[in-house]
């Protein structure tokens, strides 16, 4: 904050006596480039590609394009099926009222099954425009074992004469990983939880079953070198708002290449707590089964670099700023822009002990 303060005061002093002029900058407003975005996975059968067209001053949607998927040279579908296109437009307040804040893209869905080692090609065509990306589906990581323990972690804030400590209870997940052999590998960690709630009344056993999730949960790493992947832990750092953290949860195998490693992630226990009170008016017995799903995606270096770029943009904003080195967006799309990834997914489930609540 103080940096911004000084910077602003001094810069304002300079700029207040300065002159502003427009300088010549040549660009073609009609120079459009097709942009393909897709995060595909071996765990899914239905996949989505986001298609748009990038111009110097705007982004447009791209309806009516043909999007095809080839696996090992064979087109898995005779023709990609646009699941209808959707243009999302919201509005922002401009100087003269509401102006469109376009977030335009066209969404294409298709069905396909990918396996590690498959060569996947996604190709989009519209008129003279053609762009494609080719990805070899990487080998998955192996999750050897996982264990949990409840721990209390503290964030420390120092004061004169005393240390203020804020404590938080976490479930510590210790996970043993085995790297995919013979290659540089890049991963992301995606923990989720799901809950099954069975309700019983005096008259009827299990009269209702409610399934919740799986839903993503956030985790802390507390200086786990592999999972932080060179980023700040974001926990209690003085300048945590100035330094990007690993929002995308990506990491590489550079610290355990072709071998095994143990990582630890910490999920606040409130994610696993169940509060039965809302069901007390309909049930007098509530049985809760919670499951923790840990999925690790394996993808190629291009997508890893893309995720790291996204970490920066998420921290500092998606626009170029004079005090931030701009982020270069990697692309694996030939003839256009964007990124297509096909991840191999591995997972492990941990079931928590069944909890029973009585009204």
């Amino acid at each position, binding site marked *: 904050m*103080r*940096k911004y*303060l*000084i910077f602003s*005061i*001094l810069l304002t*002093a300079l700029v207040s006596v*300065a*002159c*502003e*002029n*427009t*300088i*010549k*900058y040549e*660009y073609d407003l009609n*120079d459009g480039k097709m942009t393909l*975005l897709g*995060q595909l996975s071996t765990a899914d059968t239905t996949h989505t590609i*986001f298609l*748009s067209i*990038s*111009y*110097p*001053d*705007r*982004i447009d949607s791209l309806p009516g394009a043909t999007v095809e998927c080839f696996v090992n040279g064979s087109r898995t579908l005779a023709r990609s099926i646009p699941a209808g296109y959707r243009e999302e437009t919201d509005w922002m307040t*401009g100087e*003269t009222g509401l*102006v469109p804040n376009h*977030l335009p893209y066209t969404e294409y869905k298709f069905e396909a099954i990918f396996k590690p080692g498959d060569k996947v090609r996604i190709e989009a065509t519209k008129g003279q425009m053609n762009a494609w990306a080719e990805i070899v589906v990487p080998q998955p990581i192996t999750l050897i074992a996982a264990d949990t323990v409840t721990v209390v972690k503290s964030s420390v804030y*120092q*004061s004169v004469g005393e240390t203020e400590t804020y404590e938080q209870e976490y479930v510590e997940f210790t996970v043993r990983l085995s790297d995919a052999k013979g290659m540089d590998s890049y991963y992301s960690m995606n923990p989720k939880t799901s809950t099954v709630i069975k309700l019983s009344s005096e008259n009827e056993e299990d009269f209702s079953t409610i399934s919740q999730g799986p839903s993503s949960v956030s985790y802390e790493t507390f200086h786990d070198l592999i999972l932080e992947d*060179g980023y700040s832990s974001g926990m209690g*750092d*003085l*300048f945590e708002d*100035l*330094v*990007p953290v690993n929002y*995308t949860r990506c990491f590489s195998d550079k610290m355990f290449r072709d071998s095994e490693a143990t990582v630890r992630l910490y999920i606040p226990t409130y994610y696993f707590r169940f509060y039965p009170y809302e069901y007390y008016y309909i049930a007098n017995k509530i049985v809760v089964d919670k499951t923790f799903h840990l999925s690790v995606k394996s993808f190629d270096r291009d997508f890893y*670099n893309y995720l790291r770029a*996204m*970490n*920066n*943009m*998420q921290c*500092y904003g*998606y626009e*170029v700023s*004079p*005090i*931030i*080195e*701009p*982020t*270069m*967006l*990697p692309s694996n799309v030939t003839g256009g*822009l964007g990124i297509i990834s096909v991840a191999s997914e591995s997972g492990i489930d941990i079931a928590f002990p069944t909890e029973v609540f009585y009204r």
Partner: protein
Amino acid sequence: MSITKLRWKTARAALMLALFISVSAAAQKKVTISGHITDIASGETLIGAGILEKESGLGAVTNNFGYYTLTIPAGEYDFHFSYVGYSEKVMRIDMRRDTVVNVALEAGETLSSSHIVARKDAGIQSTYLGAIDIPAAQIKNTPVLFGEADVLKVLQMMPGVQGGNEGFSGIYVRGGGPDENLIMLDGVPIYNVDHMLGIFSVFQPEAVKKVTLYKGSFPARYGGRISSIVDIRTNDGNMKENHGTVSIGLISDKLHLEGPIIKDKLAYSVSARGMHTALYAPVIKMVLKDAYANYYFYDLNGKVTWRLSDRDRFYFGAYHGRDRFVYDEKNEGEGTETFGAQTTHHKYKDRTDVGVHWGNTVGSARWNHVFNSKLFANTTLSYNRYRMVMGAGSAETDIVDGVTTTSRYHLDYHSGIRDFGIRTDFDYTPSPKHLVKFGSEYLWHTFIPERMSAVDREVNGAEIQVDTTIHFADPKKKYLGHELSFYAEDDFSVGEHLTVNPGVHLSMFNTEGRTYWSLQPRVSAKFSTGTGYSFKAGYARMAQYVHLLSSAQISLPVDLWVPITKDIRPVTSDQFSVGAYYDGIKGWEFSVEAYLKNMRNILEYKDGTLMLGTSEGWEKRVEMGEGTAKGIEFLVQKTAGKTTGWLAYTLAKTDRIFPDGSINNGERFPYKYDRRHCIDLSVDHRFNKKWGINATWSFATGGTTTVPVRQVAVLSPYGYVTDAQYVDHRNNFRIPPSHRLNIGCNLHKERRRGESIWNLSVYNAYNRMNPNFVFMDYGPDYDNNGNYTGTSLKMKKITILPLLPSVSWTRNF
């Protein structure tokens, strides 16, 4: 032949041989003439003054302390003592034994530097490449912004040296960055060289005697930076009589005093400079009663020189400079509010204040000792501190129905660097053909990157509700660095035309338990044809152990110096250079030099990182890579006559590559200050004793910056699609070229004692709108009816320094 006769002949031959040998020995007996060369009027030592014995062609020049030594065969000689801008003095001396001759020269007929003999430290006669001497007079005469003569801005006009941001004083030498220049004041490194965000440098021209720039084959005695060494020497003080200068300009006022404390023994020199706003701060405070804001800078220089004897001299120097910004706002009021039947009376008083100051404090003690006519030593103890302190606070008092609530919040932030150093340099002249220099230096660095604490106190009535002091960072956090170096070099002559200077600089840096060693060979050679032409070639390896975390293209107080770490390796460079020179025309010098510089472990901020100068996690935000710089520099100088000046042209290219892909996807990209063409012209003409004009014209291809080239959809970390600005590669836009003409005119008026000088100057005379900042502006467009018509894209520039006339008045007495 009888044996007796034979013995007699043999004895006679032996006698003749012995006689011949003894005569020869007598003829070859070497003696040494040594001493100091000074200005006759002030007793100020002259750096680079020459002594020449014309028949033998043997000569020497004075070192940084005005000391010379020349060893020649015993005999009677005419010695010519000379210095640029001084009348030559010829002394006939019968040299039978080692002799000390102190010579005082009188300012007068301007002498071309080409008359001065070899073994100089800089210039065409020097063995080194890329070494340029800039006398103080040249600095004072060059027209600059607001009439403030500026050392670094004159350096910017030298070939191979570029300014950073238009009109600011940062220097970028041969493709290097702003932290790759070792700028020394009397041999002590200065970390913060700027005032007013870099518009002015901290060096007060009145206190400066000479500036030497090295950018090519560096002398072995220098190290610690990879791109340039700027050695600034200050006045020793007048040993004869008291003199002074008072100067009033548009921005600042200056005072310089010097004179003897004990004539020819002990002298002082003090200089002070301050912005008007510093002097008038009480008045400004009085006028701006409720919201006082002020910015000013000041510099104080002091030096005492003590000539204990011909063998021992002591110098005590100090510098203190500050920039200070203060803001103070007060509000107070009272009122009555009624809620239904209840009436509340309240009074309030609040105050917000922000203060920030930053600057250097330097102290040095130096001892020159002449062991004998061949060995000279200089030992320096130094202390150097750069400190930035910022405080911001607010205090509020509310009285509601007689109950007082007070709250107070105060934030303190400071950072800095502190060095203690000891250095010893020896000059050893075993014969006229050799000048050996050797020595060592130890620097103890203490880096204090950032300390911040806040006091929060709130009292409601008699109850203390909050009373906390928070230290946001470890208050004891600091980094230590130990830098030790040794060097040796020999400047020696091989035959009549060739001089070679091989040397080696060995340095060690210890930090965080890790020690880095660096062996840096240096060599340069000069071949003179004897007809005015000379050719040089050189190689130098340099290493650097500190970095500046800089936030922007201007000098900010929050810029931080940090040491290398166990993970960030020292920056090194290898530079090869060649040059051709001609000084066969009296008063003219021509030179062309070419260089190739490879840099390793240079740092750049990674893509997408905040450049503000916080040291927190800085290692994670930078990446080590490689850089190359190459170029050709042309320089034509006219050094004598009524019209003097120079024309410099540089053709250069510099780029960076970070092979690990963390920057620019691993592809090579142009450096921010990659300027292809630079032209600098400086002309100074003295019509008569009264009138003189000077003009400078500079042209530079624009540097580079990064701008977005299109809008693009991206996948956010959370999986949804959003829009972002797309950048195809780093430094993808070439800023338009800058050029400007500065003109100055001096009117000298003789006074009963001294003279007065009126200076009228115009900066950027034809009001060229040179860009200081360039940015892409996206924004909604509207038609005449105010309807939104789409988003437009414009490239905009901000010009800070348009045409700026100035006037100053100087009185010398």
